[in-house]
């Protein structure tokens, strides 16, 4: 088994390095094919491991070598394949294989082709490290690694200012969260004396509540960054500057779910601190709604999908926060499939539209791109959670969890959000594929994507459709590791009411979306229509002015403070003091050197003056000694001691 583990882990790295060999040279197909193949290998070995685990095998645990060892600290490169990590491995390898193959076509004409694949495979490797590591430090390696790769990939088209800006934003925001993560790790170490999951979690129950709470909070802060939870969410939308496959892989399927993974992985900890869990859940619910609302009015295809991702992450955190870890993980998996599909579809559309992103400028594309149309529609259906698609099983499960755990507010928020989700996804579909062929105005001649790209996407399609049916098998497997709460609404009646109610609500939302956007009189908005000028629209389309606020009240002040510190504090105060001392000494010299007038009689005067001065001092002293008695008397008369 270890062989497969290493294979799964290091094949992507090999692929990345292979592609890197051609980094500087012009694009060459092999640089794309080999990594894709190696990823497929990694995927296969993950499958082997999965089957091994499914067949009730022990978790595979290897320790490759020591990383850091000093004092009491001992950190190995250790990897573990258990139910949780294998799930993630499957998701990661599968989606990334698909994305790789897809990218061969998508990046076809890009001169950074080779570079792209080396980054992409590097990302997969870091992700694998993240999910397979058996200790917090290893997790952190992957954690930072994926951050680095996402920086590279968001800024892939580095000549675009917006792209590089987004890349840096993403990196720095993640760094803010990583600090929390780091502190969390320190807390774990100094309180449990180790960073190994098993030992640390074993030690935790004996620690006192407060410390655990802090641990939970700080670790979760880390998770918030990667999973773009409020208030660190702005980078995700901007990250859409990267190539679409990247968005599909990193910003939909894998990296952003790392936060969820962390919470799931640390379930023994979070079980001990339900109040933090509740906070996580509430935040998740809030983000779900918050993100969905922003998706409603957005006019950028990819950003819409990004916000839906954000919103779905919210769902996952609700589940994780409420202790339904396996549910969270399940939704994570399902979501990965259909969301990646959605993104890749969007990629096709972009290609067809020559990187046009505004759905209002498209319309009626279904004739031109039949397959893409079908795939995106089905993906959206899955996302909306219509029976029997993947979304239904995973998402409604979360609703049930919320209900069963008696968090009715969260429940209703999520329910409402489900409606919004359906609405905006189908708003998108309708705008792109139905109605007038508005793109004609812009003289674009769309064409369907390469066959092999579509074929590459098909596994995702299939999974998006059928993933739900695996629920029970999955449950069987996962409960070996995670707390096995079955969530059943006790009265069948309520259950059916809820399910059907939800379905109806969702379908209604879809219908409304179609009605509004699929008809022929949709125009390209020009900022004049009434709705665009109403307050809510403005607030939503400006993402609640949060990016603006960050720019105004954080970035700018930081920049200005920096330059003040440099120009005024460092130069004018700290340095000036040093030079000042030197100057004072020097100028004293300049001023007093006239004492050396060179005139002999002045010199003599100095000598005599010196002597006389001393003399007077001597006399004073002498008298003082002689008449010390009297002086004492006098002073005591004055009352001086």
């Amino acid at each position, binding site marked *: 088994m270890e062989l497969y583990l290493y294979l799964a882990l290091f094949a992507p790295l090999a692929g990345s390095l292979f592609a890197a060999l051609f980094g500087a040279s012009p694009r060459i197909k092999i640089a794309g094919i080999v990594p894709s193949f190696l990823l497929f290998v990694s995927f296969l070995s993950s499958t082997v491991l999965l089957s091994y685990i499914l067949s009730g095998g022990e978790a595979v645990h290897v320790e490759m070598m020591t990383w850091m060892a000093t004092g009491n600290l001992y950190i190995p490169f250790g990897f573990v394949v258990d139910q949780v990590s294998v799930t993630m491995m499957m998701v990661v390898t599968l989606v990334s294989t698909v994305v790789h193959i897809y990218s061969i076509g998508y990046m076809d004409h890009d001169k950074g082709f080779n570079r792209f694949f080396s980054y992409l495979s590097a990302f997969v490797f870091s992700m694998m490290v993240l999910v397979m590591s058996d200790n917090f430090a290893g997790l952190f390696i992957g954690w930072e690694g994926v951050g680095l790769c996402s920086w590279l990939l968001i800024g892939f088209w580095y000549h675009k200012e917006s792209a590089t800006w987004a890349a840096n934003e993403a990196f720095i925001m993640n760094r803010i969260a990583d600090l929390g993560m780091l502190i969390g790790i320190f807390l774990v170490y100094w309180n449990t004396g180790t960073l190994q999951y098993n030992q640390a979690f074993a030690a935790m129950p004996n620690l006192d509540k407060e410390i655990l709470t802090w641990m939970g909070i700080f670790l979760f802060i880390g998770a918030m960054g990667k999973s773009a939870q409020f208030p660190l969410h702005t980078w995700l939308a901007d990250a859409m500057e990267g190539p679409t496959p990247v968005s599909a892989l990193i910003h939909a399927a894998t990296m952003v779910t790392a936060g969820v993974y962390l919470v799931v992985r640390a379930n023994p900890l979070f079980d001990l601190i339900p109040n933090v869990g509740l906070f996580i859940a509430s935040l998740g619910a809030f983000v779900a709604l918050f993100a969905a609302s922003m998706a409603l009015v957005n006019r950028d295809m990819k950003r819409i999908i990004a916000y839906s991702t954000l919103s779905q992450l919210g769902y996952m955190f609700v589940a994780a926060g409420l202790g339904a870890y396996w549910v969270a993980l399940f939704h994570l998996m399902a979501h990965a499939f259909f969301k990646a599909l959605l993104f890749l579809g969007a990629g096709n559309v972009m290609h067809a539209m020559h990187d046009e992103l505004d759905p209002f400028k498209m319309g009626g594309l279904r004739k031109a791109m039949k397959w893409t149309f079908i795939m995106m529609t089905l993906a959206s259906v899955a996302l909306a959670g219509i029976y029997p698609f993947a979304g239904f099983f995973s998402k409604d499960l979360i609703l049930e969890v919320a209900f069963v755990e008696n968090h009715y507010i969260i429940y209703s928020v999520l329910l409402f959000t489900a409606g919004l989700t359906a609405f905006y996804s189908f708003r998108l579909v309708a705008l792109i594929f139905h109605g007038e062929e508005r793109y004609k105005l812009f003289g674009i001649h769309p064409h369907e994507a390469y066959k092999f790209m579509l074929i590459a996407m098909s596994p995702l399609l299939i999974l998006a459709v059928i993933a739900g049916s695996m629920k029970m098998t999955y449950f069987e497997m996962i409960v070996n590791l995670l707390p096995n709460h079955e969530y059943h609404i006790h009265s069948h009646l309520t259950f059916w009411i809820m399910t059907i109610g939800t379905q109806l609500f969702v379908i209604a939302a879809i219908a409304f979306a179609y009605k509004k956007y699929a008809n022929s009189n949709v125009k390209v908005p020009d900022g004049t229509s009434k709705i665009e000028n109403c307050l809510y629209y403005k607030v939503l389309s400006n993402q609640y002015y949060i990016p603006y606020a960050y720019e105004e009240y954080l970035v700018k002040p930081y920049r200005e403070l920096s330059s003040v510190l440099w120009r005024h504090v460092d130069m004018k105060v700290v340095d000036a003091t040093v030079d000042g001392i030197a100057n004072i000494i020097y100028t004293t010299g300049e001023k007093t*050197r006239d004492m*050396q*007038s*060179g*005139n*002999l*009689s002045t010199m*003599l*005067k100095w000598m*005599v003056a010196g002597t006389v001065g001393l003399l007077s001092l001597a006399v004073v002293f002498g008298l003082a000694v002689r008449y010390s008695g009297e002086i004492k008397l006098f002073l005591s008369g004055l009352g001086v001691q």
Partner: protein
Amino acid sequence: MEIGLNHYLVLSTILFAIGLIGVMRRKNLLLLFFATEILLNSVNIAFAAISHYYGDLTGQMFAFFVIAIAASEVAVGLGLLIVWHKRHGNIDLDYMSTMKG
């Protein structure tokens, strides 16, 4: 009244003071040398008086040495003075301040 040691000492001190003032005030090199001579001689008076008072000869010996040295000083001093006068045609202190700072 009878002239005691203190009178001599006071006298020598006064002379010394005069000498000092001369040293400070004189701009003329020659007079300056005189002033220094006054200094030394004032001390001689005191030495003589004290040695008489103590009744041992050390003081007077010192005085003789001082006289001798004063003489040689004058020799050297005048030598320098003459050379200076040859070169510059004056013996005024204010003219010898080419080096300063």
